[in-house]
């Protein structure tokens, strides 16, 4: 057991998977000698060499498209896209190729790739370094979407992702990268993709979230009256979604608030809210509440905390939902 940050837990998972499976190769911008701009791949180049930890030219479509080819040929590529804002140029290769290859070839060709992408706001970064595009890739199909919020989960989920025979986007909430440490077992372990985690059990209201907002939700909960019992669910995997855990909880509590950083409209909150309604119609005591980013472009960092669902706004959302 070691006390690790999210960055270190991911680094450990990569190290172990590379060690035990030589089909695993990492590729991306500045990931080798530099160790990645967030130092997530630090030390791996020294350890595994230039054939397995590869600095690519500055070309995201190239990174994704060659990863598709590597995967077709039996490798297990783990590309890194430097920031989620630069998934844009890789969009077509990811969605129209990685995500479709298995089904369009009726499983003749498969794409076991895991693309690692730092995601989300709150670190005072420049433009296009603070977005949350997970809903886009959830709607696109053929791609699993994972977003851990803790070092422990990150290690287990990343190992599962790399071993998964299908494409996985592994979103790493940058705001959590170094925000705290946690005990992480030295040995390899997996956490099943598609399993939510009940962070806190409760009976009055359910909060559903994932990624960095987990911590804003916990902060909001601290400010609630003692007698409010909140069930907090961290989805961990966004697609396929563990909706059963959510439904069970809402059938118990009758109320739900969904929290995410991405813009409200057509965000994942909508999907979750709809599914809750479909499955808990007779249980709901109040409309499902969404606390999310606004329907604007993520502002530059001077205003980012006004945009993000910070604790006070979540608290308000919970109270309003309870008061309905």
């Amino acid at each position, binding site marked *: 057991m070691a006390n690790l940050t999210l960055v270190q837990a991911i680094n450990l998972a990569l190290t172990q998977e590379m060690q035990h499976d030589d089909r695993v190769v990492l590729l991306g911008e500045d990931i080798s000698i530099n160790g990645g701009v967030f130092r997530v791949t630090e030390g791996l180049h020294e350890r595994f060499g230039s054939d397995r930890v590869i600095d690519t030219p500055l070309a995201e479509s190239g990174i994704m498209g060659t990863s*598709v080819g590597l995967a077709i040929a039996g490798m297990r590529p783990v590309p890194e896209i430097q920031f989620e804002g630069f998934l844009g140029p890789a969009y077509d290769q990811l969605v129209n190729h990685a995500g479709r290859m298995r089904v369009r070839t*009726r499983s003749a060709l498969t794409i076991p790739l895991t693309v690692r992408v730092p995601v989300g706001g709150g670190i005072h970064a420049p433009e296009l370094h603070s977005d949350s595009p997970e809903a886009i890739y959830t709607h696109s199909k053929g791609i699993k979407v994972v977003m851990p919020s803790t070092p422990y989960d990150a290690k287990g989920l990343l190992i599962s992702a790399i071993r998964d025979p299908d494409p996985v986007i592994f979103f790493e909430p940058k705001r959590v990268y170094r925000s705290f440490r946690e005990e992480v077992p030295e040995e390899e372990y997996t956490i099943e993709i598609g399993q939510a985690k009940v962070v806190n059990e409760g009976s009055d209201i359910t909060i559903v979230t994932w990624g960095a907002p987990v911590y804003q939700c916990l902060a909001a909960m601290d400010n609630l009256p003692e007698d409010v019992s909140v069930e907090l669910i961290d989805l961990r995997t966004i697609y396929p*979604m563990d909706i059963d855990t959510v439904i069970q909880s809402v059938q118990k509590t009758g109320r739900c608030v969904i929290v995410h950083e991405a813009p409200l409209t057509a965000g994942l909150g909508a999907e979750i809210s709809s599914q809750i309604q479909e499955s808990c119609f007779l249980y709901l005591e109040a409309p499902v509440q969404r606390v999310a980013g606004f329907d604007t472009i993520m502002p530059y960092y001077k205003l980012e905390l006004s945009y993000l669902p910070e604790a006070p706004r979540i608290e308000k959302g919970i109270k309003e939902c309870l008061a309905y």
Partner: protein
Amino acid sequence: MPRRTVYEASIEYMQILDEHGNLDEKLAKDTLSDDDVVYMYEHMVTCRQLDEIAFKLQRSGRMGTYPQNKGQEAAAIGSGFAAKKGEDWLVPCYRENAALYMHGLPMHYILLHWMGDERGNQIPDGVNITPISIPIGTHMLHAVGIAWAMKLRKEPRVVLTYFGDGSTSEGDFHEAMNFASVFQTPTVFICQNNQWAISTPRESQMNSETVAQKALAYGMPTCQIDGNDIFAAYKATKEATDRARAGGGPSFIEMVTYRLGDHTTADDARRYRDQAEVDAWKEKDPIIRTRLYLESRGLWDDDRQIKLQDRAKTIVSEVVKAAEDIEKPGTDDFFDHMFAVLPEHLIRQRDTLRTSSIGQNPEQAGLRATPARV
């Protein structure tokens, strides 16, 4: 030195078999044997037959949109002949039927694809081909990735990728060329420059005299050849595959050819191009010149031609039968191949669609009951 030359380059064109069937013996040396040429000729004729029949299938409503290959068979077959079956990979676009067939793809797969059936992409094990690519320009990156894997695993295999003149305008072409060159992957880039991207002539797609010079940007060996000449196509490709196999990295080959048909059966080329241009290129048809050559060497005659045509007809009509006789796919198919292990909601959707419910809301299919409110 205030002014000095820092870069120089030149590009060569090569033709070995001209449109009258005359061979440049010197250049042809150590390329194709008589048997090879007969074999390739027979393949070209068979694929031309496939092309004609596919066209008719579309016209009679038995198949969807189809892009004819007519006129480009030499580029496909000459290059494909340099690939090792079961070893090397082909990563095609959609105008290389002859190369795919020769490399081991059962011909009815091609028809199945254009009949709107994914089983046409379910390439059999051991046939190293990726499926026909509908989006333009995106598959060359896959070719580079596959070649890269070969290189990383130190396997002496190469990847041939086919694409049109039009596709060289896409950003992915640029990234594929650059990755191949930087990582020295064993990739052979084969551009079938057939002068048109649907209705857009080469001059409106690019302002360069040749497509071949696009490779200079990447410091990649490059050349231009007569793409209707199986000798030149083979020789240029063989040099490239030999180099790639020996660790010498990627190459680019511009094969100058012509699309004798419409872009696809959904297109009407008379809207945008002159019949005179088409007629001039008909003279350069690769099948005509190969036959002239074979005849001049006493390797071919009318009798053999008739027999070949009969054989081609039989092959293709069997292929059509195979493609048409296959049972209709079930709706399970488009669910079952989404992931290796199907997530629960997809199982539910699949199963409720089977039961002819709307396939989405589990309660309504009786698969998950809504308990009464507590």
